């Protein structure tokens, strides 16, 4: 008879976890679900590892400490002015060079309170300034897409792993966002131009729908723009004006490589393909395998490795209307490349293949 708990098997080694009594019986729901992916034998071991890990629980403070801490908090909370009261609490100004108040020494306790009040005030003012001026950042986590709604009602649908940043406070001065990754923009008509900056280029529009792909981490990094509707100016310089600017008409695309000084002449594009990512597909035409693997990794939040480097650089044309998992996509790629696909834990590996 095997005893699963292990506790009775080695009683001297495993006292019950007194830190949280009763937790030995059940696993939290989300952990239980996670373990369901494992085969039964493995699952039991991992469940046990989870239980044993409870032994590593940090020491909990004695109840008395908790009560002392609670009292201290009450005291501090009372001192903290609910609305930022205008105390003359400049004893420790925000500038380090500021003269200190040396007129008279106050009792330590009082000074401490003043300092605390000053600190709170500084934090509040600083916090306010930061709050007003902070860049707004919309991030689509790896494996998920996300729609960013901008202050003017324009939207940007972000592909997995993409970051979009802008400044709310300066929005009235000009509509301007910074993009790292890939997004589909639907820009509402406005007086001011709408600018999208990427790591190496700028797109300037008034009111249009278009797709921008700009991954600085790609093997051959570039910014690619595909226009669906309206008109758009595309340039390697931040004003997106001047003579090196390219103007796109609907159904056209252009790109700027990392070292280019101007975008390529507009060429007719298959907009459906450029937007395939929005429906969960992938479309790459003559791109390094490494770039494609990175995209799959971002889209599904699953590590995808390609070995050796020569395979990473190999150019591939790969189009799927829809892929539902990283494994499916890599297996397709492997079939096509006659390469080998293996899986270890979470990581998918594409390796070998004829040169």
């Amino acid at each position, binding site marked *: 008879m095997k005893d699963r708990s292990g506790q009775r098997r080695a009683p001297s080694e495993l*006292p019950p976890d007194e830190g949280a009594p009763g937790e030995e019986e059940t696993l939290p729901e989300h952990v239980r679900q996670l373990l369901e992916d494992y085969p039964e034998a493995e699952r039991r071991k991992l469940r046990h590892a989870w239980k044993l890990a409870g032994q590593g629980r940090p020491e*909990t403070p004695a109840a008395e400490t908790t009560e002392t801490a609670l009292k201290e908090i009450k005291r501090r909370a009372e001192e903290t002015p609910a609305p930022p009261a205008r105390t003359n609490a400049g004893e420790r100004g925000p500038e380090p060079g500021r003269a200190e108040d040396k007129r008279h020494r106050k009792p330590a306790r009082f000074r401490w309170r003043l300092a605390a009040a000053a600190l709170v005030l500084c934090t509040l003012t600083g916090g306010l300034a930061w709050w007003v001026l902070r860049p707004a950042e919309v991030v689509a986590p790896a494996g998920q897409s996300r729609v960013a709604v901008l202050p003017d009602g324009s939207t940007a649908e972000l592909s997995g792993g993409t970051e979009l940043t802008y400044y709310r406070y300066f929005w009235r001065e000009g509509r301007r966002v910074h993009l790292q990754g890939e997004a589909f923009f639907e820009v509402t008509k406005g007086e001011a131009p709408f600018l999208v900056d990427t790591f190496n280029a700028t797109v300037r529009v008034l009111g249009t729908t278009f797709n921008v792909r700009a991954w600085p981490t790609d093997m051959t990094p570039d910014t690619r723009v595909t226009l669906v509707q309206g008109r758009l100016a595309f340039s390697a310089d931040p004003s997106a004006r001047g003579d090196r600017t390219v103007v796109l008409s609907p159904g056209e695309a252009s790109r700027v490589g990392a070292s280019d000084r101007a975008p390529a002449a507009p060429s007719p594009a298959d907009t459906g393909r450029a937007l395939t990512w929005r429906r969960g597909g992938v479309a790459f035409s003559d791109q390094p395998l490494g770039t494609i693997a990175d995209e799959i990794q971002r889209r599904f939040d699953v590590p995808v490795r390609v070995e050796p480097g020569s395979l990473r650089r190999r150019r591939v044309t790969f189009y799927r209307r829809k892929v539902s998992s990283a494994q499916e996509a890599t297996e397709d790629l492997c079939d096509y490349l006659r390469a080998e696909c293996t899986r270890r834990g979470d990581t998918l590996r594409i390796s070998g293949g004829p040169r």
Partner: protein
Amino acid sequence: MSSTPNPLDEIFQAVLGGDEDAFDALFRRLHAPLLGYARSLRAEQGEAADAVQNAFVRLWTQRETFDASGSVRALLYTMVRNDMLSRKRKESRRRELRGAHAGPEKGPRTPSEHAAGRALRQRVQKWIAALPERRQEAFRLSRFADLTHEEIARVMDISPRTVETHIRLALEDLRERLTAYDPDLLPS
């Protein structure tokens, strides 16, 4: 997100409404695990306690500004985490300026363990401490703070899937160490 109605959510709402008793209850419930978490971020003991205090003071004094529909645990852990991280940043800057290295700071371990089980307990603690930093953090939040994957994702600012991966790998790692230590401890 959270499937069952959580009593913590109710307490949180009462706190936001200005209920002091609810605040006390919340504090008693979350103080210890928060402190444990703050300490695990390689902090001096005093700093960890301070960070936890700050979080609760902010929760109370700025209760008008928080969103009642959010998770109070995610909120408090995030506040503690940010506080600890900014302290660490400051500390490392100070150290850089001094050009000195104070050596690796290990969380203080009070030797209050019972004699029985001490060896294994210490080992388990060491194994957890040996996990990569982020993985360890995700695992601690899951194991000792009972946060859901979504809450951990919010606290650590990563995707829930990454949280899952961290926890999976942490468990696999612990299982391996356990096997190496004493295969008899595991069910076959």
